[in-house]
């Protein structure tokens, strides 16, 4: 960690040194620019650089329009939310901006229907505003699990089996949910009951930083834009630093396969999936990087065997926790080079007592940590003494 900080420092010093003369000459202009950006456009620099599925537009002081695109594969239209600050009285009426759902911010009571949002909310210090969630008892996020134990956060069910009556009773300002575009989606029913649903599309992002950037989306609703920006910028910087170091090192790129077969079918992540992106950014060569999809492709085991038999590393291996799990699943998988070299790593080091995986919870917000894990797996000499956070080495 110390080494990384030093590298970052020297970089900043270099920039200042080079531009010193220029800076002095432009100082008045720069100062006024800084002044305006601080007071007039505080959120503008926060607009998404990696996430492609939400856009933010400031209509007036205290009035913001947030558009959510692509909430599921092939979604026909966008979803619009009009965020009105409680402290400014706009007198905006529902319907003033077309189809937009009017939400008073900061949100005070919320129900959260996906565990992938817990880390966003907890890191913004807003867990106490959660009144309901999907299976909070299983959460890896300490404050959420504690909230459930203390009775402050109710379990409202999950997926299509969400209990609408429980939610109605909780009187939330908004419900953060996801949708898949199928008839089992719960949001139409919640809306029918007069509840305000905010659909999130973080799981449709293809870049790991694009997923993490959704903390800004939550920041807008929770009235914590600055905090969200700061947290994201930290994640982004650490992530990009790691990517840069991989590039500079010029190390060989070890070949990588991912996921495990179920009943003869191997669901291989597509070349545009965020897992493929992680592998590439960590300096790995993903064997199936050329499949042109962000989803996964069901492949025959023989195909993965043919192409990936000699791969150096095997990651994200389902529910396996040891090498003997491989033999039990299918002894033929022992023929993979990665198994023979004992280079099999799974992302399930951090399981809650009820078996939920923190990789899908805090990992959404911390792609930098995931990347650091992968980096130290693919390039063992890179980070001496680094302890894996999300990944475990199968032994």
């Amino acid at each position, binding site marked *: 960690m110390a080494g990384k900080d030093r590298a970052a420092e020297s970089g900043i010093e270099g920039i200042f040194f080079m531009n010193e003369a220029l800076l002095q000459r432009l100082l008045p202009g720069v100062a006024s620019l800084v002044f305006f950006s601080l007071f007039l456009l505080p959120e503008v620099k926060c607009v998404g650089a990696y996430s492609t599925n939400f856009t933010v537009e400031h209509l007036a002081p205290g009035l913001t329009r947030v558009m959510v695109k692509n909430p599921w594969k092939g979604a026909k239209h966008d979803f619009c939310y009009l965020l009105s600050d409680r402290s400014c009285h706009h007198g905006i009426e529902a319907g003033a901006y077309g189809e937009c759902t009017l939400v008073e911010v900061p949100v005070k009571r919320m129900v959260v229907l996906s565990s992938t949002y817990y880390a966003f909310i907890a890191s913004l210090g807003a867990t106490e505003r959660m009144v309901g969630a999907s299976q909070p008892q299983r959460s890896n996020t300490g404050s959420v699990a504690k909230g459930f134990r203390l009775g402050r956060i109710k379990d409202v069910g999950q997926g299509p089996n969400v209990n609408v009556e429980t939610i109605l009773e909780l009187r939330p300002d908004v419900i953060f949910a996801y949708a898949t575009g199928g008839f089992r989606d719960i949001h139409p029913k919640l809306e029918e009951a007069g509840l305000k649903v905010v659909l999130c599309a973080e799981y449709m992002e293809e870049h790991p930083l694009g997923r993490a950037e959704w903390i800004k989306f939550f920041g807008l609703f929770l009235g914590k834009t600055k905090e969200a920006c700061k947290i994201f910028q930290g994640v982004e910087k650490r992530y990009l630093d790691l990517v840069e170091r991989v590039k500079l090192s010029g190390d060989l790129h070890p070949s990588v396969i991912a996921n495990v077969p179920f009943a003869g079918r191997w669901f291989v992540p597509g070349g545009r999936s965020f897992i493929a992106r992680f592998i590439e950014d960590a300096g790995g060569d993903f064997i199936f990087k050329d499949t042109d999809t962000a989803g996964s*492709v069901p492949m025959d085991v023989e195909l993965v065997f043919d192409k990936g038999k000699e791969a150096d590393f095997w990651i994200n291996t389902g529910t396996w926790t040891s090498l003997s799990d491989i033999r*039990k699943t299918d*002894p*033929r998988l022992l023929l993979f080079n990665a198994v023979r070299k004992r280079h099999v790593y799974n992302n399930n080091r951090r399981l809650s007592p009820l078996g939920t995986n923190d990789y899908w919870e805090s990992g959404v917000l911390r792609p930098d940590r995931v990347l650091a894990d992968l980096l130290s797996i693919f390039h063992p000499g890179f980070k001496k003494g680094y302890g894996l956070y999300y990944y475990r080495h199968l032994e």
Partner: protein
Amino acid sequence: MKKHQGIIFSSLLVCLVLVFVLDIATGSVHVPLVEVVKALTGRLSHDNGWYDIVVIFRLPKAICATAAGAGLAVSGLMMQTLFRNPLAGPSVLGITSGASLGVALVVLGTGVGVRGAGLLSGLVGLDGNLLMVAASAIGAALVLLLVLLVARLVENIMTVLIVGILGGFAISSVVSVLIHFSRPEMVQAYLAWTFGSFGSVTWRQIWIFVPVVALPLLASMLLGKPLNGLLLGDAYARSMGVSHWRLRLLVLFLTAMMVGSVTAFCGPVGFIGIAVPHLSRAALDSSDHRSVMPATVFAGAIVALLADLVAQLPGCQAVLPLNAVTALIGSPVIIWFILKRQMADAFPA
């Protein structure tokens, strides 16, 4: 008549061999036919990458498909005769549901904290795939015991059918409760099993699987005459000297053994059991079990191999779920059969 049947059986045999070889020769990975033949005849070096693909992946899959297809089709034929219902199939007895519950308990139960799952794995000393096979077989056997008990107690065979079907529903509802309370990755593993596959059987399992299916299959072959008696009604069968409930129990037992083991190793493979008997009866234009039974064995194996072949989508990276393919082949056959019967009733020759 005899000559006609001779042609049908020899063409079935030729078809079976052809489809078997084709199933091994094609797949997601392109292996030249010469190399496939070399690998099968043992003239390919073990270091060759194609050897592994042909001998370790494709050959056991083709053998598994052959045995499973034959077993399911014959089970379906016997069920249709026993219950005198053209829509009966291997799944009507609830055996498939029993097997599903066993697998669901193992796969999903670990996540829910069901004690039985841990107990079972400790008891059998197995884990992973083999544990799933054992759980499925135990589930199937328990349901079988129940059905046999009912069959022994009540006279009316329709009651047995109803108990089987309703019992199946009850068991499926337990499975959905388990799914409801499970973690997504566990549900995914369970759902993958329900899609069916011949490809997850390894050589070591083949040595268990094939005998377990082949023995009841051979035994069924000997039942041609008594089954013919059943076709003419219980009373007639009795007058022919066919021991009534003993035959019934034997048929149920053989079916459960075949269906239970196929479901255990390949998942709940649908439609082959219902559709193939109709195909073979139509091809032979006869209901005589002494000829329909062997024809069903061949046709079942051929259809299963064909389904596997289609599911691999040769030349494509992606593959299809097996059950989707069997349903695509199976449902038109059933529809055709029903329409044909309706037409025959409407316009008698």
